[in-house]
């Protein structure tokens, strides 16, 4: 029986689910294997059609926590939420936070995730001090930037294909308060977004923008830019606690709920909503707005949804992104949370890492079958033409040509793959 699905619910696959219970164990003698953490990647990077999916959820023990130096070592199945529960009261924070705290440590490492502070801190993998890689032949490799450094850079961003990461050691970030000092600014178009990005990147640790993906014509590329820094002193009423989801989607919503009218209306309102320009907020709504609703992916109904995330070089960003936004608004598809972000020039450590210098655009599309896949093919083509890359953790449609162009390290990477490991994603993009 298959209980492991990706967050987008597409594609649907047939696989056998296994579990790794103890970090001292060897791997099950089954092929091909793919580690499965929390299933928060969207497409098929966490799926292994006709193979075995190895759940790591039970590998969720802490191993060592140095409260003075902020060094945490934990098993790879621990979620970032569990880590936050432990480290926040001790005055530490995650060095890099993706858009949800419900991902596993191993998943964050294997996808070399990034956050709103990419321009300052680089990708997640840069803050991983060490990890243990368990191979199907029973070999255990301790990998750091110095020791087994080739295995380190193959495995960080290595999409779970080099073996099972059983445990990892993370350098945390010292904070004085769980509050974020936040500022927001409206922007009218992409040029203004780019200017705001440049102006704010030195003084603001976290920057991100919401973009109205339904706007057309003169309004194309309008949105809201938000920036944040950790507050430097305790803020009354904001406690160092991890918030639990407030609501839960108990079942799949009917597929008509998100249509071009409801989404357009939402985007209109969201853009014009009066908001405080300066405020202090709890870190949770700032970093993880969607974590408030458990199982929000069910909003997209039984057919699921596709997520698209690309990065394009800075000098081509305005042309490429406005072309993409035109395609999206013309198609009438698109969603609430479309995100633009300047990624900095700090190199990512992984051979297959996605984060690179440029502008990244991310948004979801309800799965409407052929028309959605056409739109995604167009967006992929625009990405490719401008020398950009698609994020494997979000992808279900990238072609082999696009993958090969954007990830020139893939051939070298394949030498480090565990012979008993594979994934639906890997077979798709390499045409195996």
């Amino acid at each position, binding site marked *: 029986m298959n209980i492991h699905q990706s967050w987008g619910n597409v594609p649907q696959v047939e696989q056998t689910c296994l579990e790794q219970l103890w970090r*001292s164990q060897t791997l099950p003698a089954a092929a091909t294997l793919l580690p499965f953490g929390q299933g928060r990647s969207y497409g098929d990077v966490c799926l292994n059609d006709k193979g075995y999916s190895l759940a790591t959820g039970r590998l969720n023990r802490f191993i060592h926590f140095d409260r003075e130096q902020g060094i945490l070592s934990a098993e790879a199945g621990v979620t970032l939420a569990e880590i936050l529960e432990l480290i926040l009261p001790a005055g530490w924070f995650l060095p890099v936070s993706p858009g949800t705290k419900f991902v596993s440590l191993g998943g964050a490492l294997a996808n070399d995730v990034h956050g709103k502070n990419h321009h300052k801190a680089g990708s997640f993998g840069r803050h991983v001090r060490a990890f243990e890689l368990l191979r199907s032949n029973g070999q255990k490799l301790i990998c750091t930037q110095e020791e087994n450094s080739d295995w380190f850079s193959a495995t960080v961003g290595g999409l779970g294909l080099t073996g099972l990461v059983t445990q990892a050691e993370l350098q945390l970030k010292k904070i004085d308060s769980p509050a974020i000092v936040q500022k927001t600014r409206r922007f009218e178009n992409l040029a203004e977004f780019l200017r705001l990005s440049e102006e704010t990147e030195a003084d603001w640790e976290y920057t991100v923008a919401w973009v109205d993906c339904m706007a057309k014509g003169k309004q194309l590329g309008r949105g809201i830019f938000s920036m944040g820094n950790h507050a430097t002193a305790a803020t009354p009423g904001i406690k160092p606690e991890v918030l639990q989801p407030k609501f839960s989607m108990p079942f799949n919503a009917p597929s008509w709920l998100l249509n071009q009218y409801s989404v357009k209306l939402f985007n209109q309102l969201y853009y014009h909503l009066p908001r405080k320009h300066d405020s202090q907020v709890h870190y949770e709504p700032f970093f993880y707005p969607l974590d408030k609703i458990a199982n929000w992916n069910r909003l997209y109904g039984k057919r699921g949804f596709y997520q698209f995330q690309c990065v394009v070089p800075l000098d081509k960003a305005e042309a490429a992104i406005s072309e993409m936004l035109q395609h999206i608004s013309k198609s009438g598809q698109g969603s609430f949370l479309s995100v633009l972000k300047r990624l900095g020039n700090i190199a990512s450590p992984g051979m297959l890492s996605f984060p690179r210098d440029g502008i990244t655009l991310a948004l979801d599309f309800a799965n409407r079958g052929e028309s959605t896949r056409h739109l995604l093919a167009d967006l992929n083509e625009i990405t490719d033409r401008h020398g950009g890359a698609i994020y494997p953790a979000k992808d279900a449609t990238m072609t082999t040509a696009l993958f090969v162009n954007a990830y020139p390290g893939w051939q070298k990477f394949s030498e480090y793959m565990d012979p008993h490991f594979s994934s639906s994603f890997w077979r798709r993009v390499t045409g195996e």
Partner: protein
Amino acid sequence: MQSIVILGATSAIAEQTARIYATRGDALCLVARDDAKLEIIKSDLEIRGASKVTKLSYDLNHTHLHQALLDDVIKALARIDIVLVAYGTLGDQKKCEQDFDETLQELQTNCLGVISLLTLFSNYLEKQKAGCIAAISSPAGDRGRQSNYVYGSAKGALSIYLQGMRNRLYNSSVHVLTIKPGFVNTPMTKDFKKGLLWVEPDVIARGIVKAIDRRKDIVYLPFFWRYIMLVIKLIPESIFKRLSL
């Protein structure tokens, strides 16, 4: 701060329960066969806030070592507030039907061995005139069914034993809790098809801690199993014997 001894500490439900006590800053004494696994759990619980964690490596099937175990536990913990018995095996019903030795082994692990431990620990708590004994039994012990009546009779006997002990220890202020978890997604049940009624071990763990805190006598986890079992117990035997349950 409380002192808790967990017998069968490497089981999934036991580990999740221990985490809750660890975050409360309690002292824990973990007993199980595999020392390497105990070490993994020990460091995790210490980081989560346990004030003290001791590990004792014992094969609980060796009843002749139970007195030595109790002595070690008393050495590790100044007093005992809670004893949680959390080990067991599901066994192979089909094999048991053909082989008495297999049946005996099941009864030994799930019932007789536990009773040996309970004998020693209950006397200790009785003298202490305080404390709680919480043991994981099963709804399978509520009524015999063809699919697992060997496991069911072991757990059924254990439930009756606990009930009598509760009655005996009432005047000594010792609380006895019988825990009856339904379908739990643990390594013990890895070969089962999972459906709607299945829950994760941390849900059971929260229920156990709550039932101990509230000094409940018998608790079904999650709560709805009480009603499922009520219906199952109400079916007349003349009909029940015809069902394939």
